[in-house]
């Protein structure tokens, strides 16, 4: 007979196995992350096998984490992957204020502002100490006519400019609030210190928003500067 604890062990072992990438998978995800960060506003796509295996918001953390990295995964009752991720990568768990890598799944969207407020930003002399934050959102689109986002009351239109963007690039994001972008603006106000952000969706999209990107957010009829 299988006990609950035994079932728990099996489930946990399966979660850890899902978090263990081979070299080719790690390289593929790392390349996507670099591409996304080098060309803010261009949407990249995770390989299908990664999408099917685990929540995409965790993939960048798995690729960057090792025994010398401190990670924080925003937990909810439906989303408890931090322990499995630590077992798979050997990374150390950390509070937000000292974490190198932070993941916020869509289920914990209400924590985004709090995380962006207290995540490390580094200093002018050590900007590399700024946190890398991965945020799970509902949808990302580069097409203004995307009906699902346009009709959503939470959809935001982002006008991006800065390094890696020729003139201007427009992206639609659903699942993050205007207030969250204002917090990101405050965190990235003193370049080169700041926070680099990736946004991911459950259907495998990834969007990079490095600290150097100038973001103008439009919500419904309003327009607000976010960096």
């Amino acid at each position, binding site marked *: 007979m299988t*006990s*609950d604890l*035994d079932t728990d062990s099996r489930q946990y*072992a399966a979660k850890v196995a899902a978090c263990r990438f081979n070299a080719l998978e790690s390289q593929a995800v790392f390349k996507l992350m670099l591409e996304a960060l080098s060309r803010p506003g261009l949407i990249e796509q995770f390989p299908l096998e990664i999408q099917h295996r685990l929540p995409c918001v965790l993939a960048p953390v798995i690729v960057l984490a090792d025994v*010398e990295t401190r990670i924080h995964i925003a937990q909810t009752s439906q989303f408890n992957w931090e322990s499995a991720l630590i077992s798979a990568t050997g990374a150390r768990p950390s509070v937000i204020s000292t974490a190198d890598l932070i993941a916020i799944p869509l289920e914990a969207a209400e924590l985004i502002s709090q995380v962006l407020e207290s995540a490390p930003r580094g200093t002018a002399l050590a900007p590399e100490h700024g946190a890398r934050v991965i945020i799970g959102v509902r949808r990302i689109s580069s097409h203004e006519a995307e009906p699902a986002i346009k009709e959503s009351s939470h959809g935001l239109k982002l006008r991006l400019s800065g390094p890696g963007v020729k003139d201007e690039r427009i992206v639609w994001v659903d699942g993050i609030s205007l207030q969250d972008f204002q917090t990101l603006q405050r965190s990235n106000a003193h370049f080169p210190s700041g926070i680099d952000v990736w946004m991911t969706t459950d259907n495998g999209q990834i969007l990079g928003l490095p600290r150097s990107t100038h973001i103008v957010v439009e919500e419904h009829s309003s327009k607000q500067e976010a960096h």
Partner: protein
Amino acid sequence: MDRNRRTELLAASQSQEVRQLAETFLSERAIAEELHVICPPEIGMIMMQVREPVCRERFHLGEVVVTRAEVAIAGFRGWAVRAGSDRETALAAALLDACAEYDSKMANQVTELCDLTAQRIAADERSEWQELLATAVAFEELD
């Protein structure tokens, strides 16, 4: 014995002793049936940090080869990392860590092994210090 100390001592225990105790535990049916390998032994490099004794500042001595493993017994997880590339002993040490969490009788046996290791380390340090003592220099400060 707290878990940090136990893990530290299991990493320093003699390979044969660790494997022998792990095999004894594994011969119990309940352990063998409920054992799950969460992370099979894997070899990697980690940066070794050392604290120098004058200003007590940490510095990186260099990278060392280690093997780590993680197991679970009926939901009780055990973890180990040991210097070197001995996969079998790393897995055995993780098993001992899990057994110590799972059963108090087994915990006592693991503690005995850890105590033996601690005594051995202390004896080695005393003996090394005795060798070094002859070279100690006493400085006198001038007023």
